[in-house]
C-alpha cells in the first residue's frame, strides 16, 4: 500500500477545474514522500481527458469507463472500489464538490477508510495522512491525523493549479460492470436560470445578505443599487426565502463573479459564498457583527447598520 490516487471530475464531457486542484495537491503529497501519483477519471470516454489531466510528476492516468454518460454516485463508488483494489493507494484525494459529496463518504464508511472532508490542507507525515479543517465558520482550525488505510481526503476548492508543466503521461483503462444496483437514473439537467441580469458581467456589484431582514429591505437596496450604478446580487438565504431570483445568487451553488468592486451589505461570509467572490477585485463589507468572517476576506470593512450606510451612498456616488 503506497502512493496517492487523485480522483478527477468530469461533467457532460468536460473536466471540471476542481480536478486540477486535486492533481496539484496530489503532486505535493507525492513530493513529500507519499509515493507515486495516479490520476483517475470516471467517464463514458475517459481517454478524451488524457491531454487535460497529464502533468509532469504524474505516474499514470487511469481511466474508468462508465456504462452511462453521466456516472451517478453508485457508479462512482464501484469505480473507486475497483481503483483502490487495483492500485492500493495510501492516500485518496477527492474534490469537496457536489459530486464528491455524493459518493466519497459512502465508500469511506463501507470500506472503513480514514476520512476527512472539506479539508483546507492535506499533508503527509511519518507514513500517515494529515489534514486541516475548519470548524465554526473557519474561526477554529482542527488539525487531524487520518486513521485508516487508505485515507480519503476531500479538499475544499480554492482555485489552485499544479505548478508542474503539462505533459503526456502513460494511460491505462479499467472497466466496470453494467450500472450497479441501487444506481440513480439520470432524467435530465435543469439549466441555470438564463433570464434576467447577468451578474457575472457587472463591474460593480452591490450584494445583499441576511442583514436586510425582509423583502422590503431588498426593494430598498435594489433602488440604492440603481441610483449608484451597481448591479444587485445576493447571498443564498435571500434566494432560499424567495426574495431574490436565483440568477442573482453569488457563491458556489450560484454564480462566480469577478466585478472590480464587490460591496457586501449584511453578508456574514459563509464559506460557500466566499468561494463565489475569490476572483472579485476590491471587496468592501458592511456588517453589524464585528466577528463576521467576511471581514477576513474583505479589503475594506465597516461595522455599521447597512441601511444607514446604503441611504447615504447615492449622495456620494450619484
Amino acid at each position, binding site marked *: 500500500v503506497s502512493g496517492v490516487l487523485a480522483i478527477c471530475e468530469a461533467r457532460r464531457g468536460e473536466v471540471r477545474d476542481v480536478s486540477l486542484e486535486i492533481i496539484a495537491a496530489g503532486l505535493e503529497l507525492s513530493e513529500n514522500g507519499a509515493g507515486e501519483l495516479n490520476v483517475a477519471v470516471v467517464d463514458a470516454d475517459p481517454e478524451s481527458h488524457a491531454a487535460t489531466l497529464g502533468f509532469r510528476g504524474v505516474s499514470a492516468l487511469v481511466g474508468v469507463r462508465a456504462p452511462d454518460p453521466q456516472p451517478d*454516485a453508485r457508479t462512482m463508488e464501484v469505480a473507486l472500489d475497483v481503483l483502490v483494489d487495483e492500485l492500493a493507494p495510501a492516500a485518496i484525494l477527492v474534490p469537496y464538490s457536489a459530486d464528491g459529496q455524493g459518493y466519497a463518504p459512502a465508500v469511506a464508511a463501507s470500506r472503513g477508510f480514514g476520512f476527512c472532508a472539506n479539508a483546507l490542507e492535506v499533508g503527509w507525515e511519518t507514513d500517515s495522512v494529515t489534514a486541516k479543517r475548519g470548524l465554526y465558520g473557519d*474561526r477554529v482550525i*482542527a488539525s487531524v491525523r487520518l486513521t485508516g488505510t487508505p485515507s480519503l481526503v476531500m479538499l475544499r476548492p480554492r482555485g489552485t493549479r499544479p505548478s508542474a508543466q503539462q505533459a503526456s503521461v502513460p494511460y491505462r483503462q479499467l472497466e466496470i460492470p453494467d450500472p450497479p444496483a441501487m444506481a440513480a437514473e439520470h432524467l435530465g439537467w435543469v*439549466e441555470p436560470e438564463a433570464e434576467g441580469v447577468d451578474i457575472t458581467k457587472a463591474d460593480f456589484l452591490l450584494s445583499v445578505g441576511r442583514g436586510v431582514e425582509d423583502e422590503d429591505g431588498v426593494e430598498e437596496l435594489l433602488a440604492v443599487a440603481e441610483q*449608484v450604478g451597481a448591479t444587485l446580487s445576493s447571498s443564498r438565504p435571500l*434566494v432560499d426565502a424567495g426574495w431574490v431570483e436565483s440568477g442573482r445568487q453569488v457563491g458556489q451553488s450560484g454564480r462566480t463573479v469577478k466585478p472590480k468592486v464587490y460591496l457586501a451589505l449584511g453578508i456574514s461570509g459563509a464559506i460557500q459564498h466566499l468561494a463565489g467572490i475569490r476572483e472579485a477585485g476590491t471587496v468592501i463589507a458592511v456588517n453589524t457583527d464585528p466577528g463576521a468572517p467576511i471581514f477576513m476576506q474583505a479589503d475594506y470593512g465597516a461595522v455599521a447598520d447597512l441601511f444607514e450606510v446604503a441611504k447615504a451612498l447615492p449622495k456620494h456616488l450619484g
Partner: protein
Amino acid sequence: MRLLVCVKQVGSLDEDFELRPGAAQVDPDSVEWSLNEWDAFAIEAAVRMAEADRGEVVAASVGGEEAAQALLDALARGADRAIRVDEPELQRLHDPLATARALALVAERESVDVTLCGVQSSDSPHGATGVALAGYLGVAHVAVVRAIQAEGASLVLERELEGGLAERLRVPLPAVLTVQTGINQPRYASFRAVKKAKEKPLETLSLQDLGLDQEDVPRGAELLELSTPPSGGGAEMIDGDAEEIAARIAEVVRRRLGTEVAS
C-alpha cells in the same frame, strides 16, 4: 412511508471565544446552541412526505442534553417521535463516520424507507454524515437535494450542482437524502406545538442499546489540536458614522472603477 430525519444541535461561538489549552476543546461557555439551519429544511421535507401518505416521522440525534433540544424542535415542527443516542463524546468528536454509524443503527432499528439529513452542519461542516450513513446501510442516496417527489417505490429528485445547474434523477427506495436549504419554507412551531412536543415520545438510547461497543465506533480521523487561524490579512476598517463610511466607500468605488459612476 416511514421516515427518519437526523438533526443536530449546533454550536456557534461568541465573538471572543476561547480554546481550552491542551484539551482540544472550545470553552463550552463561549458556545451558543441552536438547531442546525439545514436540518429545519430536512424536518419540513420529512413532515410533508409523511403528510402526503399518512407516514410516520422519527427524528434522531446523537449527543448530550443539547441534542434533546434539537429533537424537541423537530417534534414541535411535526415529527411524531424522537430518539436521542446519548453519546456526548461522539458529538464532541466531530467525526462524521462515528455519527453516521450510530444513526445507521437507528435507521435499521426503525426500518425506515427514507432517511433525510441536512447537507451539512454549520459548526463542523463535513457534508458527509448523510452519505456515510447510506454507505453503512448499503442503500441508494443522493446528496444536496433541492426537490423531492415520491413516485410509487421510487423518488424523483433534483440535486443541486455548482453554478446554478441541477440534475433530475430517480432513485429506488429505501434511500438516504441530504437536503439543501431553500427546498421548502420550514413552518414555524406555534406555542401550542411547542407545548405538545413535550408530550410526544422521546427515547434515549446508548450505543450499547443499539448493539455497538464503544471500541467498534468507526473513526475517520483523530484530532491532534485546535488552533485559531493566523490573524493578519483582513479588512482595513473604516471608522466614523454612516455618512463618513458612505463617503469613504464612494471614494474607493470611484477609484477602482476608474470613472465617475453614472447615476
